[in-house]
């Protein structure tokens, strides 16, 4: 029961001290004594008794005056609240009693009083004082706990609310009020189940669910669709709380936490964007696709949220950055249309990046065209070019200071209508490869620092990508060159095989031809002798004559074979292809006319002179024309034309005859291949050899029922002895 209580008795009569001492000490109190008012006050101050028994009738200073001093004198401030019981003999003086009680005396004992009575009063007072003290402590504790809780509630960095079972908000902390100001309407908390703005929102859904099921309701990353706060992303957790009302009824309330994770989610989104852009970049080697991907990412909705992005790449002499690509709207209307379209598509970022980013840009977009027509001259004096030269990021806002002496951008960029913008250098190995410019044209949002930071992260990825694309491009060019060389090689190989074959055939044919020729001469010669001396000399059916004619035909075939094998190199003179064609046509036209063939001639005007062997090319022309002529059974049409293109003369002989089937097409240039009754099968083979020896080529386009077209291609700059070169010239242009 605590420490021993101390009682101070202030009385001038010794008997009182003796009595009180004997009794109170038995009761467990410690009694201290004072005999005058002044010494009483000093004792109160020094002893700090739990209770004071103060006699009214004291010398010099009565009890009332002592009490007055205790209460009023600042000297006794520490002990001024010490409970005081006044002892007096003047029991009939009610007015004094009332006055003193009013002044704060806790009790009034009239002499004579019993010691038991004194003890009871003291006990009561001390108990009361203890109760009061505890109460005060309790009160303080409650108050401070309340303050603590309230401060937690109000200052918590999450939104907290409670509402009753009707959906009326009871409490909403400051964070939530800031987050969703619409929760307060006309200075009153709203009813979330009935408010127009909230009744269809997550808020009402959550409260309703908790009230109906009695279970907690938790959702993450929900877009806030209520009130004016459209852009928020929230995590929410509502729980049921059972409380008793003042009548003791238990009621279900709802308490909830609402956390704003917009910023977190945006950061998360940005990180994902970065990772996706990096991933996507690895999927393309084409510079154009790469740049488009980059610009798409920069303008992709919530991530970086720039409306326009453009990229410039350094030229070979490193003097300027040439506009390479631009993505973004070109006008307010355009911007609105684009945003509406994208909203409808409702693509998530990944789809957006992969669907639009990796596609090829539409070249004809207005912004793209403008960017392509722009360059940033690096030598120019402007804040932008200075920053790029120093490989710094340049952020230009309305507040950016720049002197009138130095413009923000060089005039070359005026067509882009830049207001607020950010420009980042694209740097790899300390080399400036290009620059990215992005802005918020048409939505006029401020360019935020963190977006610029993210942009710079992406830009560093791009530098690698561009270098990679350049290397790839070079590789591809090398590969194309190699492929071209390889196809040349194949062509030459085929030609070689062809030539080898011809040489072998030629050798054999020459040998056979000579061996056959001698007996033919004898047979034919004697047949003529027989015919001459026969009585049927003039008769066409004379057997000798038939033998002679057949032998002559055989000899002609042999002559052709021998001609083919010994075809000499061309001896070219300066000639004109049109003159040659005219001569051949003049020679053959009457014959064609007779066969019912219509000849159309279209010659290139001003065809320059060139070197070719007149005789050999004439043979080619005659071969081609005769081929066509012989393909007709009942006449037809042959068109002959010359054209000059890229230093190559094209001679075309085209007929509307029956054409050649694809199964025979591969053989038509082979020697001794013929489809004609009286052909030697050497015409086209000889023609091809002649054309090749002129450094040219001969091509055929035909098909059954489609007529036949022969194209003879001759290089204008053919130099004899330079055949291989000339070949490649023709092929390079034709391929």
């Amino acid at each position, binding site marked *: 029961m605590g420490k021993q209580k101390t009682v101070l008795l202030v009385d001038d009569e010794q008997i009182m001290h003796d009595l009180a001492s004997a009794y109170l000490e038995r009761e467990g109190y410690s009694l201290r004594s004072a005999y005058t008012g002044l010494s009483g006050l000093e004792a109160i101050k020094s002893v700090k008794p739990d209770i004071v028994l103060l006699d009214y009738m004291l010398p010099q200073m009565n009890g009332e005056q002592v009490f007055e001093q205790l209460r009023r004198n600042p000297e006794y401030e520490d002990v001024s609240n010490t409970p005081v019981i006044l002892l007096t003999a003047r029991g009939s003086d009610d007015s004094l009693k009332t006055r003193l009680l009013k002044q704060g005396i806790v009790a009034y004992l009239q002499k004579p009083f019993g010691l038991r009575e004194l003890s009871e009063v003291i006990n009561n007072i001390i108990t009361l004082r203890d109760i009061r003290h505890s109460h005060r402590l309790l009160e303080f504790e409650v108050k401070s706990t309340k303050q603590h809780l309230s401060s937690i509630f109000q200052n918590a960095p999450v939104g907290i609310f409670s509402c009753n079972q009707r959906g009326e908000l009871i409490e909403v902390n400051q964070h939530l009020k800031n987050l969703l100001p619409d929760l307060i309407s006309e200075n009153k908390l709203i009813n979330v189940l009935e408010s127009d703005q909230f009744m269809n929102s997550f808020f009402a859904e959550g409260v309703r669910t908790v009230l109906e099921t009695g279970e907690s309701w938790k959702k993450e990353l929900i877009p806030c669709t209520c009130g004016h706060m459209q852009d928020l992303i929230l995590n929410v957790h509502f729980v049921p709380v059972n409380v008793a009302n003042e009548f003791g009824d238990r009621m279900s309330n709802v308490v909830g936490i609402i956390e704003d994770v917009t910023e977190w989610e945006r950061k998360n989104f940005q990180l994902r964007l970065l990772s996706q852009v990096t991933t996507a970049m690895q999927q393309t080697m084409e510079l154009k696709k790469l740049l488009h991907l980059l610009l798409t990412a920069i303008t992709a909705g919530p991530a970086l949220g720039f409306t326009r992005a453009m990229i410039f790449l350094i030229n070979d002499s490193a003097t300027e950055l040439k506009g390479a690509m631009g993505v973004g709207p070109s006008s307010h209307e355009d911007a609105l249309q684009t945003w509406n379209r994208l909203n409808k598509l409702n693509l998530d970022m990944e789809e957006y990046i992969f669907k639009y980013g990796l596609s090829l840009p539409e070249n004809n977009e207005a912004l793209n065209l403008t960017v392509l027509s722009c360059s940033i001259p690096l030598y120019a004096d402007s804040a932008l070019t200075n920053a790029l030269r120093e490989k710094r990021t340049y952020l230009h806002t309305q507040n950016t200071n720049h002197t009138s002496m130095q413009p923000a951008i060089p005039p070359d960029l005026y067509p882009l209508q830049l207001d607020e913008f950010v420009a980042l250098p694209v740097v790899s190995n300390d080399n400036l490869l290009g620059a990215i410019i992005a802005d918020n044209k048409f939505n006029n949002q401020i360019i935020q620092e963190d977006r610029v930071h993210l942009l710079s992260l992406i830009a560093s990825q791009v530098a690698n990508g561009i270098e990679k694309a350049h290397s790839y491009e070079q590789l591809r060019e090398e590969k194309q060159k190699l492929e071209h060389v390889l196809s040349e090689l194949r062509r030459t190989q085929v030609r070689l095989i062809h030539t080898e074959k011809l040489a072998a055939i030629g050798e054999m044919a020459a040998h056979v031809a*000579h061996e056959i020729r001698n007996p033919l001469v*004898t047979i034919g010669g004697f047949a003529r002798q027989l015919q001459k001396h026969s009585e049927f000399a003039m008769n066409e059916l004379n057997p000798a004559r038939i033998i002679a004619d057949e032998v002559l035909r055989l000899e002609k075939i042999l002559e052709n074979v021998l001609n083919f094998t010994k075809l000499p190199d061309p001896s070219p003179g300066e000639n004109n292809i049109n003159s040659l064609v005219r001569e051949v046509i003049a020679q053959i036209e009457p014959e064609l006319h007779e066969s019912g063939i219509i000849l159309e001639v279209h010659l290139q005007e001003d065809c320059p002179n060139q070197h070719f062997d007149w005789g050999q090319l004439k043979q080619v022309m005659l071969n081609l024309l005769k081929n066509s002529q012989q393909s007709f059974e009942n006449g037809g049409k042959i068109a002959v034309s010359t054209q000059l293109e890229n230093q190559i003369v094209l001679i075309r002989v085209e007929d509307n005859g029956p054409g050649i089937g694809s199964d025979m097409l591969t053989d038509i240039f082979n020697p001794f291949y013929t489809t004609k009754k009286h052909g030697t099968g050497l015409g086209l083979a000889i023609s091809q050899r002649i054309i090749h020896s002129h450094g040219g080529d001969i091509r055929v386009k035909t098909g059954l029922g489609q007529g036949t077209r022969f194209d003879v291609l001759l290089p204008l700059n053919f130099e004899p002895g330079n055949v291989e070169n000339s070949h490649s010239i023709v092929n390079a242009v034709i391929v």
Partner: protein
Amino acid sequence: MKSKILLVEDEQSQRMLYKQVLSEDGYTVFDAKDGVQALNIVRLHSPDLAILDIRLSGEDGLDLMGQLLQINNNMPVILHSAYSAWKDNFRGKMADAYIIKSSDLTELRNAVNKFLPLHAN
């Protein structure tokens, strides 16, 4: 007096043919099957013209031409061959004419007639 022609041809059937045709044209034809016979004929009969097959069995008609011309440098020589390839040969060009063999003897006869015109007889 008829003009005299030396005909050198190793194949007997052809010799017969040419001799018959040229004789009918009005020439005196001395035929030889090889170089030895040919040289003897030149020495004995001094022919006005020689027709040589280039490829004689065992010897080269072009070599024989050289030998014949050493004896009679003024005698025209017609090279007569199944090979057109030798037409442009340097020694082939020393001949006065180069005729490719054919069963149609018109070209040969024309060439002979050019050197030994028949109306002169």
